[in-house]
């Protein structure tokens, strides 16, 4: 049911982008190409020969390799060990394998060092290891599932250089993404999938992001822009000198947050940029009361909530769209209406006194499903059976239903299709109009720049830079995210490219130094 009438033809030695909304069937198609799922009908032809793939092993044997969205690497093994794991028969596990890795790495400019522990590598390096793993097994066709989701712009550029290198050597790359700008910059051919079927094949030179988006959703490209300002002078959330220490696995106490001070006013969206793992998640958890900071004061609407438990803060008007909706936002095996109660069990309409009001909660869930366009056959189905975008719409609907004063939105549109994305943006804008304060954290820099009234950059647990979203570019923001720029970021009209390049270089060296210390 997920896919029908798919026609995809990929030329050898090209980068072929596959784009479509979430739930459009991209992943299913990839699983079929990689032998993880069998098609009910239709054929796959590889180099003029019709093949049937029964398992990933089949696919690998035929030179098809896949780089998954979530890396499959063992942290405590070296790069070499990770690469040879499961492919020991090819070149052994010793010097021959090391030489082969070197050879592949040099041939495609991957810059992989075989004897480093994977846990010491950054995200981009890990991704290169994954690519190398696939090449090591003799792949001639690579499938990359949303490879840019975890990268900052500079790293994306480096990845694209690698892809061009692969292409130049005659390899074929199938690249899955729903970021249209990227697709246009790297792909030779583009195939668009909508509702499980291929709707168009276009060349990047003949299309624009707008047209592509229209193909993907059958409607106009939404934009996160919010230009007229609704910022007021009334502070809603005030964070003063927040410091949070954590003990890492080696028993060393480190400050994961240090000297965090900021204010969000009513009607203001404060965007927090930063590479994941620089303290954003911890900051959110500290504001939510899920972690206890060692220093600092948090004030919500004039009330000191530094010591308040999570439930009090939620009742006090904090809405929370968590980064990891499966871990923090949903009860996957519970029906939708119970998920509607989650987090607001003490509030109306979910309960009266100490008792649940299941009936009212059900009725209100029906309303959320309707108003927020959650695509589901009913409210008795479990949250797990909804697609990611619809799960997110349910969460947004739930949090917005309690008239929050402050909304903490961590990656609110991650893994959400273009249509739902526009809707969520609209909701945030609308609520902001009515005086909502928003703390927005996002890896999508366009979203961050487009929605925010104020931008802050977080690096290693500190707020290192601020910027005006009206003038800043994603590249400039990106360089601050890697720690290369601090203070107030001014948009530079000329020479911006050169500055960004240096930033990327210094990032690499800095990261290595930081990790080995």
């Amino acid at each position: 049911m997920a896919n029908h009438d798919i026609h995809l033809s990929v030329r050898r030695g090209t980068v072929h982008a596959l784009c479509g909304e979430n739930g459009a069937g991209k992943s299913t198609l990839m699983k079929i190409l990689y032998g993880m799922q069998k098609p009910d009908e239709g054929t796959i032809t590889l180099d003029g020969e019709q093949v049937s793939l029964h398992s990933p092993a089949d696919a690998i044997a035929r030179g098809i390799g896949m780089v998954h969205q979530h890396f499959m690497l063992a942290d405590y093994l070296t790069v070499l060990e990770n690469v040879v794991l499961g492919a020991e028969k090819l070149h052994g596990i010793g010097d021959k394998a090391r030489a082969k890795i070197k050879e592949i790495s040099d041939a495609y400019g991957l810059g992989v060092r075989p004897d480093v522990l994977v846990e010491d590598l950054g995200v981009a390096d890990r991704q290169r290891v994954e690519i190398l793993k696939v090449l090591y097994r003799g792949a001639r066709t690579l499938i990359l599932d949303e490879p840019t989701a975890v990268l900052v712009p500079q790293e994306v550029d480096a990845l694209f250089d690698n892809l061009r290198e692969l292409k130049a050597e005659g390899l074929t790359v199938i690249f899955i993404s729903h970021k249209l700008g990227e697709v246009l910059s790297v792909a030779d051919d583009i195939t668009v999938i909508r509702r499980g079927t291929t709707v168009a094949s276009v060349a990047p030179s003949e299309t624009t992001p707008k047209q592509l988006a229209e193909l993907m959703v059958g409607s106009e490209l939404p934009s996160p822009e919010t230009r007229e300002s609704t910022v007021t002078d009334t502070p809603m959330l005030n964070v003063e000198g927040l410091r949070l220490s954590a003990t890492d696995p080696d028993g060393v106490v480190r400050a994961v947050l240090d000297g965090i001070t900021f204010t969000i006013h009513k009607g203001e969206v404060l965007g927090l940029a930063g590479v994941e793992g620089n303290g954003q998640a911890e900051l959110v958890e500290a504001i939510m009361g899920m972690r206890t900071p060692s220093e600092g004061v948090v004030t919500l609407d004039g009330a000191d909530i530094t010591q308040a438990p999570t439930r009090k803060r939620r009742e006090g008007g904090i809405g929370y769209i968590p980064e990891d909706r499966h871990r923090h936002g949903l009860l996957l095996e519970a029906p939708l209406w119970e998920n509607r109660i989650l987090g607001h069990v003490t509030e109306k309409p979910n309960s009266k006194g100490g008792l649940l009001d299941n009936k009212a909660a059900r009725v209100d869930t029906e309303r959320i499903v309707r108003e927020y366009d959650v695509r589901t056959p009913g409210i008795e189905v479990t949250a797990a059976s909804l697609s990611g975008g619809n799960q997110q719409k349910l969460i947004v609907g739930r949090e917005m239903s309690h008239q929050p004063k402050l909304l903490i939105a961590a990656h609110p549109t991650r893994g959400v299709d273009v249509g739902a994305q526009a809707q969520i943006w609209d909701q945030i804008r609308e609520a902001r109009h009515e005086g909502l304060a928003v703390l927005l954290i996002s890896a999508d820099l366009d979203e961050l720049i487009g929605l925010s009234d104020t931008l802050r950059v977080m690096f290693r647990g500190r707020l290192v830079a601020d910027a005006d979203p009206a003038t800043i570019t994603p590249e400039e923001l990106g360089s601050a995210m890697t720690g290369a720029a601090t203070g107030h970021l001014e948009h530079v009209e000329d020479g911006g490219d050169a500055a960004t390049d240096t930033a990327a270089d210094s990032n690499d060296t800095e990261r290595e130094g930081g990790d080995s210390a």
Partner: protein
Amino acid sequence: MSLTKKFDKDKLILGFAAPALAILAALVITSLIILATGSDPFHAYEVMVDFGSKSDSQVWIVNKATPYYLSALAVAIGFRMNLFNIGVDGQYRIAAFFAAVVGGALTLPGIIQIPVMILVAMIVGAMWAGIAGLLKTTRGVSEVISTIMLNAIGASLIGYLLQDGRLAEKEGNLIHTPYLPDSAHFFEIPTVPKPIYGFVVIAALAGAVYWFGLNRTRFGFDLRTVGRSESAAQASGVNVKRMVITSMVLSGAMAGLVGMPTLLGVSYNYGTDFPTGIGFTGIAIALLGRNHPIGMALGALLWGFLDRTGTQLEFEGYAQEIVGVIQGVIVLCVVIAYEVVRRYGLKMQQRKVGEELAAQAKSDKAEVSA
């Protein structure tokens, strides 16, 4: 609307499919085992049904099932929250022991004496289980380990105190706490040939409170939330640590009731012959009854039936152990069957939701009927 109903019907069918499947599988396996010992399995079942349906058997089964049911409730409180309270056994014994000591020392009117004893039992059980809760939240000790250790400690403590000159007295070969005054005898439901313990009423009440508390109160929602996802519970504002302690305490308080039907209805003292092992039976029954108050009641009755009829099999030349085998096999089958049915249910639902949405997309009308 039709679809919502259909999901409910499926849910109901799946709910019954698991225990039915488990019991059927258990019957097949035990039949094979009886055959292997060279006897006739069908005759054995006939004997069991015949003997089990006699009226004195029925009374016996209900009386036996009452503590089983309470024990299952105690275990189920933990299960709903993803805690494995293996310590119900120790909790109810130590609770019954102290209740017996207090009850033996007092001579109050029954209307005060009995509630006091029940309260003592619940508090002692709650405290004993609370130790495990505290250890888990403060020191990270798994409740599985600590409760099983506390079982041993509890047994030793009772052994130490249950001696002539300490808290017990000697009567022939038996050592037991002083007899309760007549006022502390719980009422009985007069049935023929023997009466049913009145405590069955309390057990039914406890089942109702369990159901209401978990499914209809905020507190119950919080508890179930922790059981389903600790991280989501924390983010939703539940104090997970406090909830761990609270639920252990509640589980222990419920466990405190397990010994009461025996203490207030039969033995009137706590002696060396006080029944043991009911806490472990409770685990099996909670699994069998799927933590559902009615399911566990049926499970408790089934267990009572098997206990009762097992004795009769001996007279017919069967090995008495065959009942133990049936019980063990049922528990194994139940665990497997539930997991299989649960996974199948989830998969089926996901597929149905997909199909439904695809159909909607095809007709391309946004009207959602459900």
